[in-house]
């Protein structure tokens, strides 16, 4: 039988019993749409998190004080080093060949007072380099000036939320603000980048690192960010950095080096697993659709025994009859899957339209997987009924209505 003839033959069948066809079609469509929707949302969540964390860029190494014997897993977030990571270390690292820039980081809580209001806020001590690395820009004024690391200048840049908290809509540039017992002048307001899952700079006050050292009365840094000149230099620079620090710390390798990628890898793995799990749950609905297809095919076979007998009398072989019933199920599934893809993407785009900051994207494996699973399930579940039809002896099949 030629494919167009087969197609037309099946189409007649499906439109002839449109209600039954529609129900089966919908079952498959709902299954496929569910897989797309759930994996699309999972993938969206993954991208959302990755984008949030990816602000540093993957050419940045993060140095934490203290050595942790972790292999994989989430690295320690609090340093318990025996020896502090100092600004001297930062300057030494900057002289290492292959290093582009180094940005120190100190983070602490302090009472912040301005405009007659008082809040406990995160105060971040760093240098201009951090703004470059994170591609942070000032919405008003400027970011931290380019100072020697050990110069404590009485200036600060405030986050977008801080501005609202302390000053409402009043102009802020040039006004004074008190952090702990030190005063500084506001020289810039950060642009609003929405919620950032990393350190939320929008609710913090940023001051030069040397000022922060005085404020928190410490020499030790919380982090050091090292940006390399080329992505390929990341790996070769790791031992060089460790050696340098070891040399400076009297033979102790008391730091932990992590890359953006290793940090993200963990999240990525977890979220991908989650997406997979959610997709698998949705896939169960496709199996249910498969069972429905089996029933439909069984009904179709028993209703059409006489027709099967006739087709065999006209010379259809067992293989042809088998193919006929399989292709009927297959066609129904493919139409259903196409409908499901439309519904799934429609809902996802609808969601994206409602919440534009949430990225939606169906992973290719989910799309292909859903369609293949639907087809596979249909073929497997229609196989037995189709074989039952194919094996029907032609005389018995014809008697189906001859003696009815």
């Amino acid at each position, binding site marked *: 039988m030629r494919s167009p003839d087969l197609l037309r033959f099946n189409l007649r069948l499906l439109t002839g019993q449109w209600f039954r066809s529609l129900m089966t079609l919908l079952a498959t469509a709902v299954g496929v749409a569910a897989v797309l929707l759930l994996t699309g949302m999972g993938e969206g969540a993954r991208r959302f998190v990755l984008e949030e964390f990816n602000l540093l860029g993957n050419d940045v190494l993060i140095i934490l004080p203290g050595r942790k014997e972790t292999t994989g897993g989430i690295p320690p977030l609090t340093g318990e080093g025996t020896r502090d990571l100092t600004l001297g270390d930062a300057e030494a690292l900057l002289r290492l060949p292959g290093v582009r820039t180094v940005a120190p980081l100190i983070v602490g809580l302090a009472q912040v007072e301005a405009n007659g209001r008082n809040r406990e806020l995160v105060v971040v001590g760093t240098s201009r380099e951090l703004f470059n690395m994170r591609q942070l820009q000032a919405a008003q004024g400027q970011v931290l000036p380019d100072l020697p690391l050990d110069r404590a200048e009485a200036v600060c840049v405030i986050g977008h939320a801080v501005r609202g908290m302390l000053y409402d809509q009043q102009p802020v540039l040039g006004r004074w603000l008190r952090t702990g017992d030190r005063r500084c002048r506001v020289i810039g307001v950060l642009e609003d980048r929405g919620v950032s899952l990393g350190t939320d700079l929008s609710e913090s006050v940023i001051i030069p690192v040397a000022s922060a050292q005085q404020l928190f009365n410490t020499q030790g840094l919380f982090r050091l960010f090292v940006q390399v000149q080329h992505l390929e230099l990341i790996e070769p620079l790791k031992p060089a950095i460790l050696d340098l620090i070891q040399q400076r710390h009297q033979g102790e390798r008391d730091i932990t080096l992590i890359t953006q990628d290793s940090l993200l890898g963990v999240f990525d793995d977890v979220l991908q697993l989650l997406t997979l799990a959610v997709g698998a749950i949705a896939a169960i609905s496709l199996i249910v659709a498969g069972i429905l297809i089996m029933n439909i095919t069984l009904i179709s076979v028993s209703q059409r025994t006489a027709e099967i007998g006739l087709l065999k009398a*006209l010379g259809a072989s067992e293989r042809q009859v088998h193919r006929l019933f399989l292709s009927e199920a297959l066609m129904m599934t493919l139409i259903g899957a196409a409908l499901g893809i439309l519904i799934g993407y429609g809902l996802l785009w609808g969601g994206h339209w409602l919440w534009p900051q949430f990225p939606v994207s169906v992973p290719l494996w989910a799309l292909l997987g859903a369609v293949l699973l639907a087809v596979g399930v249909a073929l497997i579940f229609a196989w037995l009924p189709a074989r039952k039809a194919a094996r029907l002896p*032609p005389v018995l099949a014809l008697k189906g209505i001859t003696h009815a």
Partner: protein
Amino acid sequence: MIRLEQLCKRYQLGDEPVMALDHVDLGIDAGEYLSVMGPSGSGKSTLLNMLGLLDTPDSGRYWLGDTEVSALGEEARAAQRNRQIGFVFQAYHLIDRLSARENIELPLVLTGTAPEQRRPRVNDLLQRLGLERHADHLPNQLSGGQRQRVAIARAVIRKPALLLADEPTGNLDSHSGQDVIELLEELNDEGITLVMVTHDPNMGQRARRRLWMQDGQLLKDERDAQP
């Protein structure tokens, strides 16, 4: 053309075995016109189904042309049915959702004949059987006689050597029955071998050769002197 040797078929009817065909020997030449008569349950349909390769014998041999078809597998038998044999049934067995044209071309569709080759052949037959106006009608829009003519067209579209008709007039009034018989005889005149089961003695008498069956056995084999 056809040779049956000691053909047997037994059915289990409840506890009791029924010999539907009981050691049947039969030879049919190409172009013959046979009627098969006998009481209900005597094995007429079983014989016809055997001839048409729809049923398999328990024992005995069957030659169709030069092939011993009783030794063939199901796939080969299906191919033989398609090429050599046409069936006409009492209940027409048309597919309801297909038009007259589509029903007629079904055997060609099954063998993968291209539409442009199917079309003229179907058109010829439609015209010949006076069905041109009904080509696009569904079976339930046709009268019994028209339906049976569509079924006959379907049976002969592949130009088979053997045409088997199981009570082709059983569901028809006498007038359309007469039409159908005349059509079958016309096809026979053109050379097709015709075997027709009937319980109507008047119909049966028209055949040049007449078989009577009872309890699965051939009771009588009667033929007219060749003209």
